[in-house]
């Protein structure tokens, strides 16, 4: 019986890992195909430089032509990746590994600070809302105010939020936090509100337990699996928001790099960063799922 359970766990784990690898490879292949078939692939701004000789222009065109077959390129790329070679950027002419190494620190700092700030704000507001909700007038006004603010933030395009933050002296992590906060808050408050209406919470109130203890122990704790899933989703949201934030706020991170690479149809850079983002998203969701399973168990 014990062996059977272990075997089924192993099978589930292998299935998960297989799905993870399939998602990663599929993501890379799709991004390669999209870049390859985007209008302008194979064209380089330098081709219009009148100082370049015909031979140099042909060499430039030849560099891009090497990547014209998506399947061949992707198989070659995976083979090189296996040996730790991420290829060379077509637009900048430098190893992708170096470009990523230079910029990943900036993105990690922006992303972690932005995420932490967004979650801290959302959690604090949810707790405050939960505490004051029972005081009828104040609770009502707080609820309306938070709904209005987060609604407005959700309506604004990410680019506008990023530029607005920068305009008022904000930093990229602050812009990222502003983008993520509304999304995290909305989901978190809905989950928490549902939990707050549970019978055991009403009993706790009736027994005169403190508001803070009720919010933390009886409301937040039971919804931790949902919050774990939200954490996974917010990492995906963060990865999506990081690109416009870094590009618009001129923050020298991976998001800015992939933005420039996409504009320059720089296949090696786009494929590597797509894989990186896919891996980050898949792994985050994997851990969120695992945590939820454990909590539910």
């Amino acid at each position: 019986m014990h062996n059977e359970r272990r075997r089924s766990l192993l099978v589930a784990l292998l299935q998960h890992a297989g799905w993870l690898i399939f998602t990663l490879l599929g993501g890379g292949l799709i991004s390669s195909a999209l870049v390859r078939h985007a209008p302008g692939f194979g064209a380089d701004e330098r081709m219009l430089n009148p100082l370049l000789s015909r031979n140099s222009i042909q060499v430039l065109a030849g560099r891009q032509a090497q990547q014209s077959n998506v399947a061949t390129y992707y198989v070659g790329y995976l083979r090189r990746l296996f040996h730790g070679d991420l290829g060379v950027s077509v637009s900048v002419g430098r190893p992708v590994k170096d470009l990523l190494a230079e910029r990943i620190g900036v993105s990690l700092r922006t992303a972690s600070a932005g995420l932490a700030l967004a979650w801290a704000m959302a959690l604090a507001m949810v707790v405050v809302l939960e505490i004051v909700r029972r005081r009828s007038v104040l609770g009502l006004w707080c609820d309306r105010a938070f709904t209005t603010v987060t609604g407005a933030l959700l309506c604004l395009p990410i680019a506008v939020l990023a530029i607005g933050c920068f305009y008022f002296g904000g930093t990229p992590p602050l812009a990222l936090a502003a983008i993520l906060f509304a999304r995290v808050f909305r989901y978190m408050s809905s989950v928490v509100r549902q939990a707050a209406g549970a019978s055991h919470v009403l009993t706790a109130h009736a027994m005169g337990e403190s508001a803070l203890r009720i919010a933390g122990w009886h409301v937040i704790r039971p919804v931790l699996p949902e919050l774990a899933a939200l954490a996974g989703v917010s990492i995906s949201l963060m990865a999506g928001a990081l690109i416009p934030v870094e590009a618009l706020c001129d923050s020298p991170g991976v998001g800015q790099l992939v933005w420039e690479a996409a504009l320059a149809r720089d296949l090696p850079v786009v494929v590597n960063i797509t894989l990186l983002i896919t891996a980050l998203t898949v792994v985050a969701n994997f851990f969120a799922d695992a945590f939820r399973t454990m909590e539910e168990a």
Partner: protein
Amino acid sequence: MRCSSLVLTLLSLAVFSVAGVSGPRWGGELRISIHSEPRSLNPSLVDDDPGETYRYLTGGVLVRVNRVTQELEPELAASWTAEEAGRAIVFHLRQGVCFSDGTPFSAEDVAYTMQVLTQPGLHSPTGDTFRVGSRPVRASVIDKHTVKILFPEPAADAARLFDQVAILSKQSPLKENAVLGPFRLAEHKPGAYIRLERNPNYWKTEGGRRLPYLDAVRLEIQQNREIELLRFERGELDLLSGIDPQQFDRVAANSKLWSRDVGPSLEGELMWFNMRPSAPLPDFEKRWFSSRNFRLAISHAIRRDDLSRIVYRGHAQAGIGPFSPANRFWFDTKLAAHQFDLHLAQELLAGAGFRKEGAMLKDSGGHAVEFSILTNSGNRSRERAAAMIQEDLAALGMRINVVTQDFPALIQRITQNFQYEACLLGLINVDLDPDSQMNIWLSSAADHPWNPNQPAPATAWEAEIDRLMQAQATSLDRGKRKADFDRVQEIVWDQAPMLYLVNTDALVAASPRLRNLSPSVLRPQLLWNIDQLYFEGSK
């Protein structure tokens, strides 16, 4: 009372004497922006604007084109002479000059630089300018301070090419980071900034002290022009050049900032038609575009003055030809911009068999004249110019569609698959000499816009341009070269393969505390005399 008057007088004298003798201030950091990361900081590989700015600030050159007088001036070469009927230039170098790391500068370094630049696999714009045909130039060291540059064929005004050649050190272990220019690399944070510090061995001096006045220059990588302007207004950046007319007017309205419209630059906007015989266009369209009357009619139907007044807010002049009047020597003063004349345009079209049926213009085969103008997205002025041209040509009965695409997609259309009818783009001249435009005017060139890579000239006038361009490139007589290129400009004006719309003004702005600014219409407009710039007061 007398005592206090005396004190006041003495104080005033002291203040005035300090003000009088206080010359340029030393020190301070100049903060400027570049719009992308330079592809390479190696001066021999530079192929973009940010790289050129970096090279200008750090690189020492043998000769420099004075951006205001447009004359060639000695720098690391104290003098030079042309020899062997224009096949050679002998440079006599300054003595006692050292690279930023203290390595002495000699003729060996010049020869080494030329060797690096002419490596067959380099493929850089600077290196390619030294290729006459398929053969590169050679450099031979005559003595420690004399070097001879040998060209395979006579090369006209070849000394000016060295304005772009930053001399590399053959001996220094720092390689390309050992420099002879006013600044050297201090710190590079990819994607964020490049910090340059004063070159302690810079050869130019002022009052016995080594220039530049500034301690450092910080090149902030700032892609977003709106944010760049915002940071300039906040005082976080000290200089702006190549500003959009709308942004310029905003800066000019701010009395706390210094700004100048320096006048027409060498840059401009132009339009051309796809005249490639193999282009995937209907034959009747190809016939329109290869008709001189059709092209001239369109040129005369465009209100250039309105483009200048409305789109560029008065910061542009009507375009005339390949060079604007800003190029004092090479501009053909006999030419004037094609005037707006709707009647003349209609006559030209009628002469080519076009006729108006109702509101639509039709060709002799009954095809309605409708085509698209392709331009790049993201350039507000250009998009508005295309919209105005659309309106102007509607008066002739033509239906124009404006198509905007991002740059790679546009380049693919105009250089690879030729799926376009007309294209509206900007022209940037970095060199005053027409020799730098060989790849535009020769019919066999890859950058010949309207019909590139022709095996043989498609028209008689293109054959004539080919002949004249080749002749001016090898002639040593400057007057003869000028006459040849004037003729090229006249043919282009007469045949209108490219419609020159406007020459934009050079618009610049700076911190009011910056001194010795001498803005130029040539690039780098405000930085060309970087070693002379200083801040008033401490910074």
